[in-house]
């Protein structure tokens, strides 16, 4: 089945040209000219990916992302003419997975979408047995268990909800548990971005992940920062 892609963009010309190109690439494109229409589309199951403009008439892109995030784990790529640090960080904090600034070439958007579409389970593809896919990340009160095969993260008996990108980030960190991963390495592994990538994407996602997996996100004990170098996952 074709990947269903929601394009939320209020500029008719750009939205139409994006639909033409992305349909040509094999996506099943759903157009939305404002956030209300887009929210209705998200309410229906089946949206796999979203391209979201930040500056919209009526409800803006930030509010849309905040409203849509609880409904879906589908990756959200922000497409924006706003490229200030605050805007990008705010969009990522709201739940976006990556961003592209205008003017862009459509190949760039396609590359971002492809990177985010890689399934969490694909990180562990290979010859691992079922047992090898289960990792106990924190054996403290209410053990934190990551089952990559089943794409499930639990703290005690409670299942923690991660977005696709958060799952893939955790997967890469688990693969290199106990070793420091630089921000650019994480950008490369998770977002498929090169050296020009924005390391703030990594920082915001690490913050988001910590809020879910750490007992005290302010003083992380599992996903720790190694100053000047990057991040390290400590299995305890």
């Amino acid at each position: 089945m074709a990947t269903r892609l929601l394009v939320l963009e209020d500029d008719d010309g750009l939205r139409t040209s994006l639909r033409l190109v992305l349909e040509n690439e094999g996506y099943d494109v759903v157009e939305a000219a404002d956030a209300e229409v887009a929210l209705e589309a998200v309410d229906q199951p089946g949206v796999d990916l979203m391209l979201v403009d930040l500056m919209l008439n009526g409800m803006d892109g930030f509010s849309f992302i905040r409203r849509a995030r609880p409904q879906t784990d589908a990756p959200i790529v922000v497409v924006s003419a706003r490229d200030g640090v605050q805007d990008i960080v705010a969009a990522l904090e709201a739940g976006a997975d990556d961003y592209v600034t205008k003017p862009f070439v459509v190949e760039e958007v396609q590359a971002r979408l492809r990177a985010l579409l890689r399934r969490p389970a694909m990180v562990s593809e290979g010859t691992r047995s079922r047992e090898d896919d289960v990792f106990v990340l924190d054996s403290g009160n209410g053990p934190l268990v990551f089952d990559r095969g089943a794409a499930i993260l639990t703290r005690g008996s409670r299942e923690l909800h991660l977005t696709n990108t958060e799952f893939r980030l955790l997967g890469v960190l688990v693969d290199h548990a106990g070793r420091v991963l630089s921000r650019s390495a994480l950008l490369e592994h998770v977002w498929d971005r090169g050296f020009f990538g924005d390391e703030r994407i990594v920082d915001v996602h690490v913050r988001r992940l910590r809020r879910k997996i750490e007992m005290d996100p302010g003083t992380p004990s599992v996903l720790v920062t190694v100053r000047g170098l990057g991040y390290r996952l400590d299995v305890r």
Partner: protein
Amino acid sequence: MTRWRKVHGLRSSVTVAFALGALALSAALALGTYFSARHYLVEQRERTAMRQAFTDAAFVRDNLLTSGAQVSDVLGSISPPAGTVIFVHRDGRWYSSSLDLPGPEATSGVQPVVATGAAGVGWTSVTEPGAVVVGVPLPAVDAEYYEVAVAEELDRTLSTLGIALAICAAVTTLGGAMVGRAASRRVLAPLADVTTAAVKVSAGDLDTRLDRTEDPDLAALVGAFNNMVDALHERIQQDARFAADVSHELRTPVTTLTTSLSLLQGSTDLSPEVARAVELMAVELARFRRALEDLLQLGRLDADVHDAQPAEIGVRDLVRQALLAGGRAPALLVAECDPLREAHVTVDRPQMLRALTNLFDNADTHGGGLVGVRLKPRGTFVDIHVEDGGPGVPAEDRERIFERFARAGGRKLGTGSGLGLSIVARTVHNHGGSVWCTTRPGGGATFVLRLPLVHGDDA
């Protein structure tokens, strides 16, 4: 005077004017003092000499009257004070108490007065120093009495006074010059502040203002200067806003164009002519998009540095990443640092990678290809030399090429935006560094990017 001031500066002019004023004043005072003192002293000396001469003349007259004594005997019985010579003129003969001095010449100034029967006083310069000549007629013995007293003490007093006054005048002149220098410095001090502020403003620091002052003489200057900077700032902001607004408005249409065109490019059923036209459009649109991106980037760099997120990074790592980001061989990097002491800089990594990539691209586009990148420590800085194998940049273009939309040589299809090097300059400037272009020893151009080093404990 005006020309002199032009050559020597306001401060020297004021100093000299003060010195000349002090000199004129002190010279006038000194001369006045000298001449009035001299007048008084001379008069006093003459009175003394006359008193002495009258006493001595009376003695001589009395002696000559009594026993018809000879003049020479009478003169021999007088013991005049040191430096005083007595002459007696009688019967056409001159008698003197000293053989050194010729009587007629020494007393010639007073003789006519004495001849009229009155006592006379005058000066002669037959002696060295000059002497007071007092002549007294002695009608009772039919003789003329003269006394020539050398005014040695008076001369010494006057020369001492003259020296003292000259020294005073010189000291006063010097003092005047010093006061002038201090005054001009005091007056010009606010100008130094204005100069400093103007230099800062011209260097791009438009937040510079002069401090408010209570001094009514300076308030107008300070106010005018600050208003000028305000106006300049406002004007620059307007220009920047306009450029930003235009660039911003172009983002979406350019994106729509490139997106639609990519569909056309992917199409296989175009005639060769149309395909060629589409290709041309794509190339030029790509250039347009790059120019727009560069403009936006420049606007961000101009607007503020708040966007920058400086972090410490090893220079070699930075250059390696820049080479890799552009798909170039890391082996192009030749480090001349001590490999154990890795040099670190604090930079916004994406901005600096972009600046370095711009330099590499520039070397490839205009400089016949990137030949190598060298790192050279320079004190508290590190120099990154980007060397190319092209024809080099003519000396007169070496500054111009960092200006916006400046180009060396002709325009080729699909080349840069003309903003790449200004982005480099702006980025480096924001990081407290500098960039310039020079020649490479083996031919070609070298772009030197100088960045301040980090000297931290954890460097």
